[in-house]
């Protein structure tokens, strides 16, 4: 028996239209000593059995003050036929939308509820029980100050028990509709009606709220279902999204996640990614507004990768995996729709790149001989995290012949030197994605990530003089970027400074290393970063919450 039907609890008030066009129900004001509610479905055999008994009880105690209301879960035609079949003279209230049935929280019909004059449940039961019905009749009579009527005719014996039928609130379609009704009440977003003449997908394109690809319409039912993917309140503000610094609530993120095609279990990853992206350190505004290439690259670590199907292996940067495709897309849609970041407006990318639709991968921790990225960055292996990195599109690192770790790392260094421009040494962050076959080569020689970074820096070291603009190539490290104590009287670096070896990256730890991809194929990748440090963007890792 649900808590709602426990004796002594307040009976939920309701008023419903009846077959006669007036209203009946249970109100907060006292309406006589007691009210009997008879919830039924027209096609329930036990309801057929109970209906005459309710009619008789109403006749015997009606003059003593007992109000009786039949509450039908069926449509009006079926309800009228039921009432006629049983010659019910009591009001029949129509609860086709199940608002009263849901409030009283019973599982099966018939459900009889005796309510006191001050609006409390006196007794309730579902289905039919002979003793239960006797007790209800006795309670009704006592409450009305009347003698207990005997309704069982001489020689008749009612069955001890008859099971009822499932309440309509448990029909799968109805249950979902009711869940949406409950959930939709907590949604505060503006409702937008798609005109009948409009194709929904063309409608979204016309509004400019898509990313150029069709989106899933974010109906109330879909958003309510999406919100089941997090324990956080829909009204909670997760982040202020650049460029307009508009608040992204859990609800708004869920709406865009629906549009992106996410499943509910992806939502908390999208939330964590936005938390990371909207930090000062990541500098999403700069990443969005620059004429350069970067996009928020999302790297997922932890057990959640396999729980929800994030691809970490073959074609990891490519198509075909819903979690990878939609998580990144949801983040981009939030930036566009909530933050207001759109190409040609604040997004001034000269060329852009495909990763601005979506870029989300899982690290292939199982193929890695090293600590995964999130453990390096201070988390436990069993924690689920996202790391946001402002990255270019992946570019290939081909090495199919190196048999030693040193040779392979040298190849990687030579490839990495071309990030942005070969002369740009002292560079900020990059993301090096090492494929499993290359891992095996490095592992065979016992190389750690630190060894790999060190060799990359060695292989990329060039005399400073070769990194400066010259007559052949005007690009290079700007002289004004060099410390003044390195400069001579002529405004150029002192000769001994020109010979100093300058590695590609400012710090070894600027080379972020993850393992991903299929077991076959000796092709790793590098994703160049954007401006590093306080003026640019640095990678940010966040734990994925509930």
């Amino acid at each position: 028996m649900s808590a709602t039907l426990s004796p002594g609890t307040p009976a939920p008030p309701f008023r419903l239209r009846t077959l006669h066009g007036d209203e009946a129900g249970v109100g907060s004001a006292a309406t006589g000593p007691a009210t009997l509610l008879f919830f039924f479905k027209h096609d329930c055999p036990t309801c057929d059995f109970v209906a005459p008994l309710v009619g008789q009880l109403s006749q015997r105690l009606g003059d003593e003050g007992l109000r009786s209301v039949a509450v039908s879960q069926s449509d009006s035609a079926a309800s009228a036929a039921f009432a006629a079949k049983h010659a019910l003279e009591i009001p029949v209230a129509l609860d086709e939308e199940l608002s009263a049935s849901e409030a009283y929280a019973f599982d099966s019909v018939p459900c009889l509820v005796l309510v006191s004059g001050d609006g409390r449940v006196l007794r309730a039961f579902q289905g039919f029980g002979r003793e239960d019905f006797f007790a209800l009749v006795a309670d009704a009579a006592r409450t009305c100050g009347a003698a207990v009527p005997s309704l069982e005719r001489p020689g008749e014996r009612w069955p001890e028990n008859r099971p009822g039928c499932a309440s309509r609130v448990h029909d799968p379609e109805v249950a979902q509709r009711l869940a949406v009704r409950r959930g939709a009440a907590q949604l505060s977003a503006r409702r937008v009606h798609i005109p009948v003449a409009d194709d929904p997908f063309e409608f979204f394109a016309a509004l400019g709220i898509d990313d150029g690809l069709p989106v899933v319409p974010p109906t109330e039912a879909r958003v309510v279902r999406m919100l089941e993917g997090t324990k956080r309140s829909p009204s909670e503000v997760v982040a202020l999204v650049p460029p307009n610094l508009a608040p992204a609530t859990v609800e708004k993120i869920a709406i865009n996640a629906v549009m992106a095609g996410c499943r509910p279990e992806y939502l908390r990853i999208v939330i964590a990614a936005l938390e990371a992206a909207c930090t000062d350190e990541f500098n999403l505004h700069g990443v969005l507004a620059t004429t350069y290439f970067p996009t928020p690259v999302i790297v997922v670590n932890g057990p959640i990768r396999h729980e929800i199907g994030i691809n970490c292996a073959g074609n990891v940067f490519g198509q075909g995996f819903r979690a990878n495709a939609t998580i990144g897309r949801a983040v981009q849609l939030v930036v566009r729709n909530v933050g207001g970041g759109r190409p040609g407006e604040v997004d001034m990318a000269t060329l852009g790149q495909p990763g601005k639709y979506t870029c989300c991968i899982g690290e292939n921790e199982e193929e890695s001989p090293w600590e995964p990225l999130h453990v390096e960055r201070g988390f436990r292996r069993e924690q689920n995290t996202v790391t946001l990195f402002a990255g270019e599109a992946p570019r290939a690192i081909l090495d199919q012949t190196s048999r030693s770790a040193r040779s392979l790392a040298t190849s990687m260094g030579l490839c990495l030197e071309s990030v942005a421009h070969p002369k740009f040494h002292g560079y900020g962050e990059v993301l090096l994605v090492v494929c499993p076959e290359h891992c095996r080569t490095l592992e065979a020689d016992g190389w750690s990530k630190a060894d790999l970074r060190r060799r990359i820096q060695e292989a990329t070291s060039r005399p400073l003089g070769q990194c400066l603009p010259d007559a052949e190539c005007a690009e290079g490290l700007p002289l004004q970027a060099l410390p003044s104590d390195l400069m001579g009287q002529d405004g150029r670096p002192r000769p001994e400074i020109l010979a100093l070896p300058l590695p590609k990256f400012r710090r070894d730890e600027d080379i972020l290393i993850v393992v991903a991809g299929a077991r076959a194929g000796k092709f790793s990748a590098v994703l160049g970063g954007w401006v590093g440090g306080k003026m640019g963007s640095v990678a940010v890792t966040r734990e994925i919450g509930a």
Partner: protein
Amino acid sequence: MSDSDRVILDPTAERSPLRRRLSARGARLRGPIGLVDIAKARGDVFLDELEVQLRLRLPGEQILRLRKPTFTKPTPPSLRDEIAQRCRVVIQALAD
């Protein structure tokens, strides 16, 4: 599609109404061109002359004449649908 499927939740920050984007502006005027008379006095005269000029300058382009029943009420949905389905460009004559 049920009624509930035609109601969506706004994915934006709601700082401005959701509006359809303007269609891209073409390099040249291409038909079918709808000339819509809102039924004010002598609006038809203006559109007659406009039609003559358009036919001179854009030979071969289809030009359609359409008319609201009255200027005092919004365009009937049936006329709106007809304009949407038949015309690439619409010129609406307002007059007073």
